[in-house]
């Protein structure tokens, strides 16, 4: 007894947290809510329907695959719900519903469950699902014009509206305020930057993610675009606010399973993401490169981990010395 307190003797781990996979995933879902509401306002009811279908499909696939493979049921950790929301966020709101379900199937059945379920996926399932749809369906780059839905019924409905990244030079760009609020063409969850940043801040405050990856990722893109645009800050602002950069940087590049653990590794990973995104945007034939950059860096993550593993205190400084000693 020390000062009236019982001295507990126990085996490690001594530091415990109340966080569970379920609570973390619930935080991510809460963080995605502002963007979900924004998408409903910007693109109309169809955006919400698409998200709901995607979530239900992911949950059903997850349950069915676990059952078929004879593994424990993991629906309770809510990770399938997060994947479902993210896949819907990566689709234009006019996409046929069955195509979203195909994307869900690839993400959950192949990328996630065939590799062993949560924590075992080699790339982010949502990103893989998006790329599968992007390569397969032309409808993935047909954008619905914003505000064509139930918000502004008097406005003439536009069938398609180019995203700022695909707008040819000379055409009118949406104003920067519209870009921040998300009143532009694009995937349904990626347009409203304000809502995404709000969600990101919530995740940082709740310590679900560290701000390293999003900040370094977006920062790298900004710096490269500043150089490429010869110091034009307006260009930088459009590049950062358009496409899926903020959605990808905050919600998809930060996936625990497929991003490095150490801060040093995170910085390398995020710089890589930013570099590949910028290179695809500037030199590639595609207007957008966020999903490809994240999937490539996901695959590089084990290599980054290998070179950034911290050395335990007290180990010899150079491996060469150790080798010489044994030789």
């Amino acid at each position, binding site marked *: 007894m020390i000062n009236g307190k019982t001295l507990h003797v126990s085996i490690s781990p001594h530091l415990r947290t109340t966080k569970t996979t379920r609570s973390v995933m619930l935080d991510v879902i809460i963080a995605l809510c502002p963007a979900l509401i924004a998408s409903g306002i910007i693109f109309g009811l169809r955006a919400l329907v698409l998200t709901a279908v995607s979530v239900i499909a992911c949950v059903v696939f997850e349950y069915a695959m676990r059952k078929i493979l004879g593994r424990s049921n993991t629906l309770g950790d809510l990770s399938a719900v997060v994947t479902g929301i993210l896949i819907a966020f990566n689709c234009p709101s006019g996409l*046929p519903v069955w195509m979203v379900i*195909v994307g869900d199937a690839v993400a959950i059945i*192949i990328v996630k469950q*065939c590799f062993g379920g949560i924590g075992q996926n080699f790339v982010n399932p949502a990103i893989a699902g998006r790329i*599968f749809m992007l*390569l*397969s*369906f032309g409808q993935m780059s047909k954008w619905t014009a914003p505000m064509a839905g139930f918000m502004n019924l008097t406005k003439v409905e536009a069938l398609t509206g180019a995203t700022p990244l695909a707008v040819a030079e000379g055409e009118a760009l949406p104003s920067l305020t519209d870009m921040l609020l998300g009143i532009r063409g694009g995937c349904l969850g990626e347009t409203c930057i304000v809502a995404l940043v709000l969600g990101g801040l919530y995740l940082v405050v709740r310590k679900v993610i560290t701000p390293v990856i999003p900040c370094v990722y977006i920062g790298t893109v900004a710096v490269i675009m500043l150089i490429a645009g010869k110091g034009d800050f307006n260009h930088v602002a459009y590049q950062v606010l358009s496409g899926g950069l903020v959605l990808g940087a905050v919600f998809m590049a930060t996936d625990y399973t497929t991003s490095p653990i150490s801060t040093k590794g995170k910085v390398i990973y995020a710089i890589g993401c930013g570099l590949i995104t910028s290179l695809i945007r500037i030199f590639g034939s595609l207007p957008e490169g966020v999903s490809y950059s994240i999937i490539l860096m996901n695959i590089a993550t084990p290599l980054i981990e290998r070179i950034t593993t911290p050395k335990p205190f007290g180990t010899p400084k150079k491996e060469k010395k150790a080798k010489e000693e044994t030789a």
Partner: protein
Amino acid sequence: MAEKAKLGKEFSKGLIKENPVLRLVLGTCPTLAVSVSVTNAIGMGIAATLVLICSNVVISALRKIIPSKIRIPAYIVVIASFVTIVQMLVKAFVPALNDALGVYLPLIVVNCIILGRAEAFAGKNPVAASFFDGLGMGIGFTFALIVMATIREIIGSGTFLDGIDSLTALFGVTGFTGFTLFSNPVGVMVMAPGGFLVFGLVMALANKIAEGRGKPKAELKDCSACPMADACSMAGKGESCEEKAKEESAS
């Protein structure tokens, strides 16, 4: 009877148990490239099977004459001759298939399955056994190609047996040009990523089937199929290479 049963075994092992593509993981390159349509798969399978049977028989017949030091060049010459013959036949009778298969038809020369069977089997076994080995492996290759191509063509192009009339025309049947199933295909399935995806899934299924029959996963107990068997100090001791490697590292 025993002789016949042995030949039957040489034939049947190539179908699933030692399927060249799905179990031995040989000939991956043509498999991924050609399995975009069932017609291409059938054409490629027949061409490769013909070359495989002929080269296996000839190499087996010449196995005592070919000096072991230059056996690889000798095998290549034999295989290349048959590939040239097959290629000329395809060009003459099925020009559409020749266009579809492109460079993969002459590349049968360096197909690992054919060289692998020459090295692992035909160079050491009598003519009849080599014939059945070639036939079984060829059919196994064709079977794997058709399975993969069926999945990829139906999902990726929304068609089935598209362009089959180029093959059926050989038998005087024309007019049937395959089914069009739906008009909104999942395009990625006929691209390289889809190929790898289907390859992985079908391979997993083949492993599962073979495992169910009591065969260990993609692991060969004897060394006959291993090109390093001659140089390996452990060859023919009845253990798998992986086990040996483990033992070596342990000691």
